[in-house]
């Protein structure tokens, strides 16, 4: 149920933007983690904002290209004029979007672990920037893995929603419009909520309109379990949206 030639085609169409965004993410992370000046902002700025924003840009651009743009332009006709089931097309595109996001986080995780092993960050310093007090000890590899895992499942949920819009709409403008609004509002509200956690309480409530709320690095740093339940919700959203998108794509009329 996976088409390698189609996968190759999708990689060709989206590979460059993935490489660029992954590189930018990894470089930013390393910079935040290594420079003394920015170490206290690693969680607030990088994990709080960038770890959502940069993957979101990739998700937004690539998911539109998975279906909607190809149907809109008519180029999907070439893929579907070969003996390939629509379900196979859907699964291959799904595999692409899941794998690219997973790989993105694997790379940032490894980068962070490598940097952190060399010079472990004190949790007191890390927490102070993010408005969390009373932490002791150093940032562990386990914590890094958990934080990235939590971020990754939320990105998968975002990607699932965008995948679904791309599969449902035959025109790029609708697919991009819905996905863009969803991703834009989520990322923006996440940023505003960040100021909330810094003490501007009026902005705190913005977290309720953002899917990024399901990503909870604070609970990981403080040793809580909240992130697991939230992650499970994000994963459920991802599964549902991927399935709805795929089924919709298999059943709809295609103007090709």
């Amino acid at each position, binding site marked *: 149920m996976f088409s390698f030639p189609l996968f190759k085609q999708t990689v060709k169409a989206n590979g460059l933007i993935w490489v660029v965004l992954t590189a930018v993410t990894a470089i930013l992370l390393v910079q935040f983690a290594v420079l003394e000046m920015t170490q206290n902002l690693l969680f607030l700025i990088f994990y709080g904002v960038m770890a959502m924003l940069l993957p979101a840009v990739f998700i937004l651009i690539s998911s539109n290209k998975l279906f909607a743009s190809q149907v809109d332009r008519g180029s999907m006709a*070439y893929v579907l004029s070969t*003996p390939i089931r629509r379900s196979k097309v859907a699964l291959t595109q799904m595999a692409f979007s899941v794998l690219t996001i997973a790989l993105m986080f694997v790379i940032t995780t490894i980068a962070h672990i490598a940097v952190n092993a060399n010079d472990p960050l004190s949790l007191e310093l890390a927490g102070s920037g993010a408005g969390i007090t009373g932490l002791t000890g150093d940032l562990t590899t386990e914590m890094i893995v958990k934080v990235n895992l939590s971020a990754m499942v939320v990105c998968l949920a975002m990607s699932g929603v965008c995948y679904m819009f791309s599969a449902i709409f035959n025109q790029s403008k609708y697919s991009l419009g819905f996905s863009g609004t969803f991703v834009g509002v989520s990322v923006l509200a996440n940023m505003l909520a960040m100021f909330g956690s810094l003490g501007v309480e009026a902005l705190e409530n913005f977290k309720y309109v953002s899917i990024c709320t399901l990503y909870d690095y604070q609970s990981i740093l403080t040793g809580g379990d909240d992130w697991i339940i939230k992650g499970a919700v994000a994963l459920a959203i991802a599964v549902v949206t991927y399935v709805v998108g795929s089924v919709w794509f298999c059943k709809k009329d295609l103007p090709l």
Partner: protein
Amino acid sequence: MEKENVIEVEHLTKDYKRGRGIFDFTFQVKKGSVFGLIGTNGSGKTTTIRHMMGFIKGDSGSVRIVGMDAWRDAAKVKKLVGYVPGQIDFPDVGTGTSFLRIQAELLGLKDFSYMNSLIDRFKIDITAPLNRMSKGMKQKMAVVAAFMAQPDIYLLDEPSTGLDPLMRDTLIELILEQKAEGKTVFMSSHVFKELEDTCDEVMFIHNGHIVNQVKRSQYESDPHETYSFIVASEEEYLLCREAIDRFIQRYQDGHMECWRRHRHHQFTVALPTTRLNEFFALLSQFTVSKLGSEQYSLEKYYTTIIERREVA
């Protein structure tokens, strides 16, 4: 012996509302034949072909390709089908070379000799970036992609769009070659000439309805030549009118028609080539001031039908 039907469309209806769509289409395409679909823009040509490709599902009725349901068994059907879409835009994969390579992989094509011969024939520079290709070049790429695996059935949606006259001839040659090998071709077009050159049967559609279906033998035996002429005076016009009426009455087999324009003293007569001598003998009795001929073509056949329909 009756040849088997490769494509069977039965009572196919797809209603897009506000009078758009296709309504109650029923027709068959025989194995080894070239079937033409002709109609004005928006008449339903592309919609018909999309049903055959399993891209859209009819509201009612069925489309069967060698016995398989075009929607449900779409993936299986496509093993047998080559498709030139009406809208030409390629996947975002860089050059023509990588497009054809990926396409070949999707088709499971291993032998590239035929593909290369097509590329030579159509004079395509496949190393060019796809998004820089001209309309005609893109069309030729699409033709190569559809023909390279030499499938049994071709579904071509206005395949000659954007091609120069030489390349159009090459395409017609290619279609006839494939037909000679027993392949079945279903093509839509609004260029009558290419349908005349290739098709065994032509179906006319208008505003989503089948208007008429003619076999090659039928339109070829129908009034074949059309002559327009003008006689010198009013007196001659009246005499000529009588003479032609008598001439037509003598052959009441419906193969002759005459249109008149009194004010210009003009006649237009459609008649089979076998009656030409008699016709000219008749003409020689009058002072003809102007004479012109036109081929009685598929186009004439079509426009006459549509005009009659709009009047009725």
